């Protein structure tokens, strides 16, 4: 249990992925502070909400996830961005990690694996955990 709920924004154009990840986050006790379905809205939502973390697809309409990643980190160097995607060629993965993504999650992972990785990322955010 956290002293406060980690606030997370979700950026994915696929409804079923947002549905899945939203439910994973709620089950883990995180707050879904916003959902967007394109890259331009992802940047705008980040500015407005200033979440603890943004979980983002690569193949976003209007502005791709890697461009949004660079935009967000350019404006907010301490932003924590996790890429969640089907695209896992080495160049894309390397580019996103070098740009500053804190993690890179494959959508093809089992839900338990996605949960495990998100828990690790959230634990690194420094939000104080309190005994339940």
């Amino acid at each position, binding site marked *: 249990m956290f002293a406060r709920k980690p606030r997370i924004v979700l950026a994915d154009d696929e409804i079923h992925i947002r549905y899945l990840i939203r439910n994973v986050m709620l089950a883990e006790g995180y707050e879904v502070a916003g959902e967007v379905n394109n890259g331009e809205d992802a940047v705008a939502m980040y500015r407005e909400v200033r979440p603890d973390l943004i979980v983002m697809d690569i193949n976003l309409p209007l502005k791709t996830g890697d461009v949004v990643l660079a935009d967000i980190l350019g404006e907010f160097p301490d932003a924590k961005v996790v890429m969640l995607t089907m695209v896992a060629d*080495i160049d894309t993965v390397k580019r996103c990690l070098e740009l500053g993504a804190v993690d890179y999650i494959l959508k093809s992972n089992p839900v338990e694996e996605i949960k495990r990785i998100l828990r690790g990322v959230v634990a690194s955010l420094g939000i104080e955990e309190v005994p339940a």
Partner: protein
Amino acid sequence: MSERYDVKQMRQEIKADEKLYRAKPVLLTQQEIDALRAQLRQAKSPKESQT
């Protein structure tokens, strides 16, 4: 919830994802990505400690 999530559209998306997954297989596994991330972090940290 049903207003936000259109089940018919979700099914179509899942089908499209399966098609994409078959046509363009994932090239790195999650373990390989984790290893790459650790490697990049390690390469970056000595630079940071110099500054």
